[in-house]
């Protein structure tokens, strides 16, 4: 493979107003504005929008995308690792380990290979396909948690903490409301908790249909029931309730006046983030790569050029540059500094 460096060709993937454009292939990855053909990395809102005439995505992401964008979208499911041709380029999808059906997009043209990770993580997650290293010349990586203070403990250890917290609230007869992103994090927690219990968990209305899709895909999770707000007499003492973070400040919470609250997010690694939000507990559980994960993955791809999306990657770029890797930030609209969104 020849390096892209010094080549006269335009870059294979370019950040434009539309998204991550591939001119040679005539498609856009994760578009945010109207486009014809798109390849979607995963079903989170900052990556999947209803702006394309045609969608390609991993087979296991199709149901989630239809749920999010509507049944009427023109979508083609693709097997992981199976190459297909778009315009003049060869495209294939490879597991990103972020959420169910999340893919890295590999694009090959004239012996030049580019990979866009979308969002990814290296840690074990029983609710989605495991990350696969894809060698490439140019690696476009997310960099949501690109500082060495972000290092994750294994998910099952965090799940043990959640279980312990739930048990202590059972003793105290208080409900515990755990805020998790409704797509991915919630199901990962439900899956990890099967190691400790087979108790039933209550779900906020926004989390419920997505969990059904995971269950249909064969993911092993704790039994769940949607919360019926019309049932005013029901007591939730000692029960675990999973809700999206947005429900935190809403009237919905008034239903659980005595609840202990927890939040699952990589941002919870920093004490100030947790205290500022006023949650009782912060569980450091992220579906993004941590610092070690980012460095290790970049090294394993063998890429000579690294472009970053999501977040403040200044430190990562400087470190890579000092190691002789050509690195810079790519300006995209995928969720970045706003620490509310971890998508």
């Amino acid at each position, binding site marked *: 493979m020849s390096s892209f460096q010094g080549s006269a060709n335009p870059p294979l993937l370019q950040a434009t107003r539309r998204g991550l454009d591939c001119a040679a292939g005539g498609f856009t990855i994760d578009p945010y504005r109207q486009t014809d053909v798109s390849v979607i990395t995963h079903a989170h809102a900052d990556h999947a929008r209803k702006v394309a005439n045609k969608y390609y995505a991993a087979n296991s992401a199709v149901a989630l995308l239809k749920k999010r964008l509507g049944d009427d979208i023109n979508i083609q499911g693709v097997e992981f690792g199976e190459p297909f041709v778009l315009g003049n380029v060869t495209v294939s999808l490879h597991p990103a380990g972020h959420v169910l059906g999340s893919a890295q997009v590999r694009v090959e043209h004239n012996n030049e290979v580019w990979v866009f990770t979308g969002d990814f993580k290296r840690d074990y997650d029983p609710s989605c396909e495991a990350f696969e290293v894809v060698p490439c010349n140019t690696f476009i990586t997310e960099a949501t948690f690109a500082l060495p*203070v972000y290092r994750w403990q294994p998910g099952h250890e965090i799940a043990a903490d959640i279980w312990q917290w739930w048990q202590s609230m059972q003793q105290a007869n208080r409900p515990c409301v755990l805020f998790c992103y409704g797509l991915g994090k919630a199901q990962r927690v439900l899956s990890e908790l099967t190691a400790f219990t087979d108790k039933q968990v209550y779900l906020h209305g926004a989390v419920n249909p997505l969990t059904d899709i995971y269950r249909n895909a064969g993911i092993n999770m704790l039994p769940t029931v949607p919360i019926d707000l019309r049932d005013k007499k029901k007591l939730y003492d000692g029960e675990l309730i999973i809700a999206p973070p947005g429900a935190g400040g809403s009237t919905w919470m008034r239903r659980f006046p005595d609840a202990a609250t927890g939040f699952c997010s990589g941002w919870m690694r920093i*004490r*100030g*983030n947790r205290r500022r939000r006023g949650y*009782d*507990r912060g569980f450091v559980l992220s579906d993004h790569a941590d610092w070690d994960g980012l460095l290790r993955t970049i090294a394993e791809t063998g890429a000579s050029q690294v472009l970053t999306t999501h977040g403040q990657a*200044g*430190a990562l770029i400087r470190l890579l540059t000092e190691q002789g890797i050509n690195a810079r930030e790519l300006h995209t609209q995928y969720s970045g*500094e*706003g620490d509310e969104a971890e998508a």
Partner: protein
Amino acid sequence: MKEFSRLYQTLDQTTSTNAKVVAMVEYFKHAPPPDAAWAVYFLSGKRLKRLIGAAKLRQWLAECSDLPQWLVDDCYSSVGDLAETIALLIASATENTTQGSLSGQVDELRALSKLDETAQKNKVVQWWKSQGYASCFITNKLLTGGLRVGVSQLLLARAVAQHADLPRAVILHRLMGDWTPDESFWKTLISEDDGAADISRPYPFCLASPLEDEPQSLGEISDWVAEWKWDGIRSQLIRRDGQTFLWSRGEELITTRFPEIVTAAASLPDGTVLDGEVLPWNDHGVMPFNELQRRIGRKTIGKKLLTEVPCVFLAYDCMEAGGVDIREQPFKKRRTTLESIINAVRLVSSADCRLSLSECIDSPDWEALAEKRSESRQRLVEGLMLKQVSAPFHTGRNRGDYWKWKIDPYTVDAVMLYAQAGHGKRSNLYTDYTFGVWDGDTLVPIAKAYSGLDNKEISQLDKWIRKHTVERFGPVRSVTAEQVFELAFEGINLSTRHKSGIAVRFPRIARWRHDLAAKDADTLACVKQMISND
């Protein structure tokens, strides 16, 4: 150490005050007395003397974590808390099970002062690498200063009281003043009878609440006593066993800084404790607060300063008379006692007695009192104090019996110039701001403020600051002059120490003026105008 860091975590991880008390009681039940004493010390916000500077710790951190210095510094500026940054970067993955006690760790920390720099570094790095996250964080907190764990003195006293099965007021009183955190302190703190108590020990201050409603809501004016609310150092004057002690509300012993008050207090009978205010007071009456500032912060006071800024202790109340705690008596009765004590002293003193009595303001009705209150600014006072005639001298704030009826603050529209990250809970947010007003076509800084915005506004502003940084000076960023805020403050004086030529007191943000542009902000000339209006 393990138990204490677990206590810290529990306190840090819950917003429920009951759960906090339960956790502290549980800790005190099992802690060896020296550990319990140190826990009380740190939980009441006291700290060890700082032995090693932050820059040095950052350098050691870079060296032992194999990260470049710039990356360590980046991490620190992102996290905003050095103790936490260190723990995040190099704490051991598992908690060491054989670690020592809290008091043992404190002894080792204090012993650092006797080591040379290499030995200090070896010791500190060894702690970092051998302790798990929680203990490493605590050790660093003790090393770099305080703990800030969100436990008020009242809550701490509640837990100790519950553990010792004593009234909370007793514990609060015993926690006042100067004490050494050791085994005997802890045992005395929780004992039924603390025997010969420390003669310097002050009482907890009784605090007033701000009056937000109309005073008519308080009922008959005859049930209330009104006094001026002075702007000095709220203090407690103690005369016991022929010795005098003067404590500030911040529980600092300030006796030596006010020799003229000490001289006057020598005529007080033994067993007297007075509540009052230290004020700068010359032949013409009270002087502006910034004159008093010249006396604060100096341990020894020269003759010149003593003549230029003579001070007085203006007595408000009496908590102990003839060696008896009279705090439960009604205010009216205590006031009579206070008057007879002060009058007796003034009788035997020179004409210029530095001990005087706060005046009670007689008014036939609330309207007349409101009229009196409007003289506040000319009198250099902050407004009025209202005291219920039958109220006891409360421990702390007890809404209903003591009110401060302050005059409305001054306000000014000013432009944000600089921002700096906050501390503790707000360490990764820009929450400390500097504001300026127009002097010709330049903006001159007039005030720093860090309160008055709600959490939503703070994070909105934080985002704006990050996007509109012009320059960085260490932790401080200068920002585009665009955002206008209405600032409120209590007082304003001419000052030669400030570039603007003025100094404002207690500045705070009244509201964010989204409706104003930088050009609409006030001018320095119109701010100075406020001084001459006084």
